[in-house]
């Protein structure tokens, strides 16, 4: 005779450990007046070029640093270091995303001094990074015009987890017949009210508006943390 099973309710969140660490990081960033910005996108959408330009443009006036996640190679960190900003590579091995404990560990072993902006470039992947909070205050999801307008519909979860959509490589929009209106509609469908920035790291188009946006958010963080 099979014994009757007994059901016990446990209700334990599987990613609780990550969420707890992320919350602690977020508190630390806010207390120190740092705006932590993470970047997610598919591989090849232009995260590194975009970040390199961001670091270069902010560096004269702000203290900036970047953490960059990759499965292998330090190529991205080397590229980003050209901006002159402190950059640290997190090599994930076979893991397809960053987790909060990797950010914490990278920061603990890194004497980077006081910062205004910390950028976190996630591994190029539109699936798994959506489940992991990294303690960032702002998550940017990048979509390059060469990828097609329907990316938001194919990967709604990552778009939904992000705060702002950045359409990159806008200088190529005409050549690849990118339909901006359709991309906007798709983004608004998966995340109603989402702010969308359109820019090109290569030509500089749209970068000024993006920097203004970042500075506004940074000022907002400082005001809140000063209270």
């Amino acid at each position: 005779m099979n014994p009757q099973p007994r059901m016990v309710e446990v209700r334990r969140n599987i990613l609780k450990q990550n969420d707890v660490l992320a919350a602690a990081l977020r508190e630390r960033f806010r207390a120190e007046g740092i705006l932590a910005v993470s970047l997610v996108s598919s591989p090849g959408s232009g995260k590194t070029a975009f970040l390199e330009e961001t670091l270069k443009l902010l560096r004269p006036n702000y203290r900036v640093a970047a953490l960059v996640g990759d499965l292998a190679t330090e190529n991205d960190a080397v590229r980003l270091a050209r901006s002159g900003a402190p950059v640290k590579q997190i090599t994930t091995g076979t893991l397809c995303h960053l987790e909060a404990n990797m950010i914490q560990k990278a920061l603990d072993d890194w004497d980077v001094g006081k910062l205004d902006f910390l950028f976190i470039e996630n591994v190029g992947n539109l699936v798994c990074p959506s489940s992991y909070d990294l303690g960032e205050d702002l998550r940017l999801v990048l979509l390059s015009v060469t990828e097609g307008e329907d990316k938001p519909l194919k990967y709604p979860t990552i778009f939904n987890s992000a705060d702002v959509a950045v359409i990159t490589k806008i200088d190529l929009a005409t050549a690849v017949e990118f339909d901006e209106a359709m991309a906007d509609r798709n983004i608004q469908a998966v995340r109603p009210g989402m702010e969308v920035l359109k820019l090109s790291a290569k030509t500089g188009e749209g970068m000024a508006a993006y920097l203004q946006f970042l500075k506004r958010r940074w000022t907002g963080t400082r005001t809140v943390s000063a209270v």
Partner: protein
Amino acid sequence: MAQEESQLRGNAKIQAVHLRLGLLSGVVKEALLSSYEMACETTVLEGSRLVIEEIPVEIFCPTCQTARPAQSIQWFCCVECGTATCDILHGKELEVFALELEE
């Protein structure tokens, strides 16, 4: 996690793990089911079942002023009135909801 819960209850054998999985959790039911047996080998969960309850996306509709299902995970609109909103009440769950223990 299962091991802790089992120990808390006198090392009872776990027959099944009930998981609540939101459609927005970023985790795929089929992938979990297919890897579960392998992941459980040589652990206290060896031989147990994984039971997954999928949780649809539910939003708070600002027009209807109540909880409503979203049209789909690609369309964050109230199924009743079509208002678009990002006020998500359910759908991000990834939690072990219950365990079935052998008496």
